[in-house]
């Protein structure tokens, strides 16, 4: 695994360590590498916006029991009304949006149980 550790100063350039195959290399880290997003495993219980968009309709409320395939809400993005459906039989734990909200990509719209 690659990971960064303590910082070592050398001739005004601030180097840090990059560990590859158990060897720690003294080096600079470029923007792309140091600003990379940590990986988050997919959680099917979190219904997320697959695109940024708005919420023109919500069909369920907190506490509802829903069946797999049941319509939960509409996410309007790129002028298309996308029907978001329940991925499995379950229970609506919380709804994090209200009518007319604009949501960014990957925003958690609904949490299911």
């Amino acid at each position: 695994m690659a990971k960064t550790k303590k910082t070592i100063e050398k001739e005004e350039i601030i180097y840090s360590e990059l560990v590859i195959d158990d060897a720690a290399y003294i080096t600079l880290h470029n923007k792309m590498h140091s600003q990379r997003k940590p990986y988050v495993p997919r959680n099917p219980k979190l219904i997320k916006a697959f695109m940024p968009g708005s919420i023109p309709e919500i069909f369920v409320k907190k506490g509802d029991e829903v069946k797999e395939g049941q319509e939960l809400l509409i996410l309007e993005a790129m002028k298309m009304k996308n029907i978001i459906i329940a991925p499995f039989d379950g229970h609506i734990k919380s709804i994090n949006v209200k009518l007319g909200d604009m949501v960014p990509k990957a925003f958690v719209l609904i949490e299911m149980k």
Partner: protein
Amino acid sequence: MSIKQKTLDLKKRMQDALQGGGAQAIEKQVAMGKMTARERIISLLDPNSFHEYDLFVEHAAKDFDMDKKQLPGDGVITGTGTISGYPVCIYAQDFTVAGGSLGLMHARKITKIMDLAMNLKIPIIGINDSGGARIQEGVNSLAGYGEIFFRNTQASGVIPQISVILGPCAGGAVYSPALTDFVFVVDKISKMFITGPEVIKSVLGEEISMEELGGARVHSEITGNAHFFAESEAECFQQIKKLVTYIPWNNSKKAEPFPKKAPKTEEFKIDKIMPADPRQPYDVRDVIKSISDNSEFFEVQELFAANMVVGFGRLNGQTIGFVANQPMVLAGVLDVDSSDKAARFIRFCNAFNIPLVTLVDLPGYLPGIDQEHAGVIRHGAKILYSYSEATVPKVTIILRKAYGGGYIAMCSRHLRADFVFAWPTAEIAVMGPEGAANIIFRSEIKNAENPEEMRKKKVEEYKEKFANPYVAAAHGYVDAVIEPHDTRKFVLHALEISATKEQLIPTKKHGIPPF
């Protein structure tokens, strides 16, 4: 009318056309910190060398009252000239005329000069400064773009194509530069994107400035769309003038030779640049400068994927493409961006008969979920493909570490390097000593009374046996182990002796590289 009168009439017509969009529009252009299209051409080309064609072309738009409007030169200036005596075809979009918008005749002027460049077999330079398609001309302006893209693709690998972005270049217009060999951008002036901030805001609700979305810095550091970054238009033109001297006029020629010059060995002492410990950083560009003529190195994509260094230099006056791992950044690893960057540069050099000199010092490919998910398999394959495909003389020097897949990828013997040299500091092995010892001697280390002590002992053992150039040399994978200060001598001889190199490639329409 007498000849004199006719000449006066011509002068009058020319004067009208040369005014472009008129004083007001020119004032606006200057206020944005930009030169006018004609000023740009004149400052880029040799004095008095520019010859303009199609000055009297008129636009072909009929709808929306456009037939009543006059657009001088239809918003683009085209012609031929020289840069340091090297012939070029050139066009520059004139933002002062209808925002440099691209209509049918505007596109025809561009495709005409592109066709000329192809027939004359000389480089084409395009200066982009345009608001995009001329909406009033409808599908004709789309046709115009398509005709340009087609020609860009046909010309690819035949004549060098240079794009200069000196203003907006948005929507479909970005694909002409993207299809060309080198893209030049200027800070705060160049803007490139497919969809602009306004569309992104209205469709996605995300807010971003033009500069942050597609400014010069973004394309130089993050996207890799640009190859040369300048602070001003003047600096940008200096870069283009320099590049032109390094590249040939077309794919059947070699770059023009320069007078031979020795490197500045006082400033760049080849024996003192690199620390022997493979974990310590240094600037590999200093090694290039300790080999190249007059210690000159003209770097391409300096700000993008800095863990890989690519660029031009000369050896005994001949243009060379240098490809080198940069231990100073990310230990010089191969990753998605650096593989992409190197592969494209290698293909340019191969297409235009520029020999490749590769300097190797890398721990391998960069581990990480982000890299795997970004397609490091597909992108990493590009470097293998481009080195294997290249038939120009290929000389490889292994400076220090060359581990695992990284060793193979960096123009190893196995990808048909003509010459592979190694410094005595080279470590050619399947992986670094630490990692290898931990795997091979896992049980010994685990069962030892003092595992840490045992680990150290085994790492040392492995280093002694395998972290050197002699195992590879024993198999003939390395041609010679050389002292660092003999590098230039060996490389010069290798290139001299490969001047007549001929390598046959299997008959095919074209390969299918892992783009």
